[in-house]
């Protein structure tokens, strides 16, 4: 063989080695420690627990038990309802603030507020929920203030309202952030054109701003839904687990019930629900606008 060909072949081999060296780590790690555990979770739903021992099996008993249990039905509907409610509430509450940050402040100030909104994401969520627990408690700031002005106290801890308040602390920073970015991307000339045509402010928002920012707004609502649907802390510490959500069911089955297959069934139904919800929401977000008219 000619040396030039040999050199070329060696170089090609080296290039393959190089590509594999950088390409393999992510593939290997995420397959081994993400895909396999997730697959294992699905397999686990068909296992059985005999004499408190986990046994590989192929039984539909766990699925039948969980899907037929009334406690699961109520937890499922309750979790879905609260997450959808929070997603809608967060979107509505966030919108005026995102609108202000996108249109009424300088780019510099907007940057500052946007980095501020990243802070909650990195400040221990359980600690923030604990702080809310204190703020909302019968002796907390809110009820003290109410008592000072002579109003009756409100009992929030242990109610779904408190859970939604907790969900909002989780979802609002993300929703305000994403909405601000979405609105800041709206073409200003379109808004000005609407004004020049004597379009009222509400009408401008409804027919220019909202349609242009639709993708970002829908994605932010989807984020709120995903974040709150899987949350365990707020419904436990603020809602008092009355009634439990799906994540509380999972934790209870694992930690006290010691029934991992049933916990896996609940987890898989959550994944399926989230995937379906995301498919619907992203479908709405990226739907071709021409399809409407």
């Amino acid at each position, binding site marked *: 063989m000619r040396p030039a060909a040999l050199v070329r072949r060696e170089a090609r081999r080296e290039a393959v080695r190089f590509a594999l060296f950088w390409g393999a780590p*992510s593939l290997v790690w995420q397959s081994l420690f993400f895909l396999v555990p997730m697959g294992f979770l699905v397999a686990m739903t068909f296992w059985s627990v005999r004499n408190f021992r986990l046994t590989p099996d192929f039984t539909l008993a766990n699925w039948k038990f969980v899907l037929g249990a009334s406690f699961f039905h109520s937890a499922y509907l309750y979790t879905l309802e609260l997450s959808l409610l929070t997603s809608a509430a967060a979107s509505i509450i966030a919108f005026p603030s995102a609108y202000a940050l996108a249109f009424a402040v300088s780019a510099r100030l907007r940057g500052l507020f946007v980095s501020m909104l990243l802070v909650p994401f990195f400040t221990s969520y*359980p600690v923030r929920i604990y702080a809310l627990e204190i703020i909302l408690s019968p002796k907390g700031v809110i009820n003290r203030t109410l008592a000072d002005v002579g109003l009756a106290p409100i009992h929030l801890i242990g109610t779904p309202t408190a859970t939604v308040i907790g969900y909002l602390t989780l979802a609002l920073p993300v929703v305000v952030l994403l909405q601000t970015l979405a609105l800041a991307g709206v073409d200003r000339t379109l808004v000005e054109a609407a004004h020049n045509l004597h379009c009222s402010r509400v009408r401008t928002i409804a027919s220019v701003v909202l349609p242009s920012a639709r993708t970002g707004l829908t994605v932010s609502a989807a984020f709120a839904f995903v974040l709150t649907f899987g949350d365990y802390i707020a419904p436990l510490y603020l809602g008092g687990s009355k009634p439990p959500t799906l994540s509380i069911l999972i934790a209870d089955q694992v930690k006290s019930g010691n029934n991992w297959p049933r916990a896996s069934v609940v987890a898989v139904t959550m994944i399926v629900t989230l995937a379906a919800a995301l498919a619907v929401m992203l479908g709405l977000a990226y739907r071709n606008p021409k399809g409407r008219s």
Partner: protein
Amino acid sequence: MIGAIGRRAALFAWTGVVFVFIFAPIISTITFSFNSARFPSLPWAGFSLKWYAAVLTGTTIRGSFTNSLVVAGATAVIATFIGFATAYVDYRYRFTGKTVYMALAALPPTVPVVILGVAMLTFEARLDLYGSLTGIIVAHVVLCAPFATALVRMRLADLDPDLEPAAWNLGATLWRTMSGVILPFCAAALLAAFFMAAAVSFDEFMIAWFVSGTHETLPVRILDMLQGQVSPRINAVGSLVFGVSITLVALAQLLSARRASNADRRGRDE
């Protein structure tokens, strides 16, 4: 005119309320960590550092803090390596199945941590990884690597794609180009990725809660404390945790911002 001013004022007032709502728990935690009263409530009972003293001398909290540092450090090293490798592959190569490859690399943070936690628990229990720091690290890398990938990928987007082939044409090997061109260019982003991954790991409570067993990390310890009575020590330990995470994220942001200003300068020179 008055209508316009009123509308602006209302918008800003609403924004203020939203921000107060978002930040009230953080401000309340830090404020009451310095309050000497047992129950965190107004009126203010006097400045005190006793809860910090109680936290810093408690051996269980100190032990869990050490565990958290070990986990966050090891996670950040591995996640930064994997993140860089993935970002480079995305930058350099086109291949069949790349979409799937990148989706797999980005997917883990979209799965609720409670589900990841159960999946990791059932899997790691089989491998005898359950209840070890290694088990937590393995799971945290899965979660943190995508953040590292994103930060490095953003940096590589600023690298002229012809620079590497230029180095090859001048006779540099693939490895030499990597160490002489790519890695120096990404140095700040790699540090940013390291701090970001460390911050995500340091704050992660749910997966660690499932798989840690007796080797509690600090957030898991805090969860246990929350299950007990109201204790002002939680405010002190919470404030410390806020401090560590925010420092890490601030470092990451600072390093990423330097990247942006460098890019600005280059833009002006051209």
